[in-house]
């Protein structure tokens, strides 16, 4: 971590690989909603040199839907990816925190589906353990 | 060839009988132990019958082993019957004697078959 490049702009210097990828993502109530499987970056075109004045920008985090392509290559259709815009990120520490409740993001659909179809129907499913 | 397993099973059944006679252990534990020893004996016999002797000498040895395992199997079964105590079952004392006999047979056989060092 010592050899991160110096940066003029104020704020945190983050290593995408070390601090963003595969991190836990929490919503604004500290409820885990997913892991960062991949990121979407704007401003890179194949075959063109990077322009130092207009560096690539991370636009979204891909949650729980990009592991397979990351391991084996390929690219899922956009409709299958659960994207969280970078603007929703409110803090980055040992986990990435979002400023909104989890239900605002479509990555939590399977949680909601299993809750509504299975878990909440079993007696006691909606009660706190005693 | 299953001798060691048989010795262990016979020892286990013996211990189950003696402790239940001394009142150290409960009927359910003693019966479970003898049951398990029975299962172990079946496995040991299977192992012995699966062994195919290639020459006369080993064939003779195998016969002795199969005989001893059969006796041990009977002894363990009698132990189970003695514990359950239904009419006509062998007494605990005679079942114990039978186990003791079988145990010394197995030991003698194991010593004989042990390759000289």
């Amino acid at each position, binding site marked *: 971590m010592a050899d991160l490049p110096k940066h003029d702009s104020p704020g945190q210097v983050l290593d995408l690989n070390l601090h963003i*990828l*595969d*991190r*836990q*993502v929490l919503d604004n109530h500290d*409820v*885990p*909603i*997913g*892991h960062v*499987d991949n990121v979407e970056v704007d401003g890179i075109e194949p075959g063109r040199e990077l322009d130092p004045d207009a560096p690539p920008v991370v636009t979204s985090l891909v*949650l*729980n839907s990009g*592991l397979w392509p*990351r*391991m084996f290559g390929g690219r899922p259709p956009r409709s299958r990816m659960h994207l969280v815009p970078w603007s929703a990120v409110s803090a980055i*520490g*040992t*986990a990435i925190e979002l400023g909104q409740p*989890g239900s605002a993001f479509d990555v939590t659909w*399977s*949680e*909601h589906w*299993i*809750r509504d179809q*299975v*878990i*909440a129907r*079993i007696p*006691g*499913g*909606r*009660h*706190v*353990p*005693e | 060839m299953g001798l*060691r*397993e048989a*010795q*262990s099973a016979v*020892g*286990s059944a*013996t*211990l*189950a009988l003696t*402790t239940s006679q001394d*009142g*150290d*252990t*409960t*009927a*359910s*534990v003693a*019966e*479970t*132990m003898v049951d*398990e020893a029975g299962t*172990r004996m079946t496995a040991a016999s299977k192992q012995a019958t699966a062994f195919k002797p290639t020459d006369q000498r080993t064939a003779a040895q195998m016969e002795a082993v199969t005989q001893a395992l059969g006796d041990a199997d009977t002894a363990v079964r009698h132990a189970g019957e003695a514990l359950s105590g239904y009419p006509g079952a062998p007494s605990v004392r005679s079942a114990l004697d039978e186990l003791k006999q079988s145990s010394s047979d197995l030991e003698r056989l194991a010593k004989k078959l042990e390759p000289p060092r």
Partner: protein
Amino acid sequence: MKRYFAVALGILTAIGGFVDIGDLVTNAVVGSRFGMSLAWAVVVGVVGICLFAQMSGRVAAISGRATFEIIRERLGPRAGTANLVASLLITIMTLTAEVGGVALALQLASGVQPLLWIPVAAFAVWLVIWRVKFSIMENVAGVLGLSLVVFGVALFLLGPDWGELKDQALQQTSHPRETPLTYWYYAIALFGAAMTPYEVFFFSSGGVEERWTEKDLVTSRANVLVGFPLGGLLSLAIAGCAATVLLPRGIDVDALSQTVLPVAMGAGQLGLAIVILGVVAATFGAALETGLSAGYALAQFNGWSWGKFRRPAQAARFHLTIIICLVVAVLVLLTGIDPILVTEYSVVFSAVALPLTYLPILVVANDPQYVGEHVNGRLLNAVSSVYLVVILVAAVAAIPLMILTKAGA
């Protein structure tokens, strides 16, 4: 005052929680075949689990991140997924063994076939995970498990030849009926029984469940450093009982009944009742821990919401995972497979999988971003590195030894 009570309770539950079906079976098998001559392997395992649990507890308390979140972060997708698959398989295998152990112990108490007890035991495990608060679950199982101390009492009452036991442990007397390969195979099995990976998933996730903070570090350290070694002593007492009663009679342990029989001989029917209670509590407690650990591992790896501090409806996928794992365990057991056999394999595979979880924890315990000023000290890192080598050697040697010895036959 409350604090001392918390420390004492933590230590007691750590002792009671240390022993599970793996320790019960492996220690009795080894005691009946090798006497006390593998006692050193228990000691090595106990020191290892202390190191490991202490590090993962510290990481959980300070960063709030449990083990599998860290495995995912540090190992990335490929190695992480491989790790998840291996860890889940072993945890489910251990869960199967524990549920089977509960059924076997209930058979000893009642005389009723274990096949009938299996669904009952699994349902009870689920019900506790579903409805009972984490701290109550943990403390009740741990304190009841403490009745296994009767193994130690029985050993004294049996009046063994202590000098003989000491000689076996220290002078490595020969075992005419065994080969060196089986000796090393069982050394690894004992190591794996003491250092089961699920214990670490559970310990670190438990830290998050109980909302540990920096203030709880002392308590957690005391639990581990006092509780686990005492649990190890209990393991040695189990081996000692088997070495005293079963070894001289040529009885190789292959059933739970043989494990508890020496207690009956030493302490009579009262001792027998206590030890059966202890075995039920220890295996039941471990079934709770392994069931939860399977849920923790999968949920943390995927970043799902998890934990018993939430309502089940707020951790739906976590609870569904646990239900599925319990169903799998029951189905496996209903095939009639011997739970003792499952146990013997599970402890060896635990040793195989250990480096997968140990290494990421060791790395993160040195990362100030996670643990701040509480990074490993120099001495701790030296010992941990030695253990990394031990763990790697055991993991690599386990499978070849298993094949060569036909799983210790």
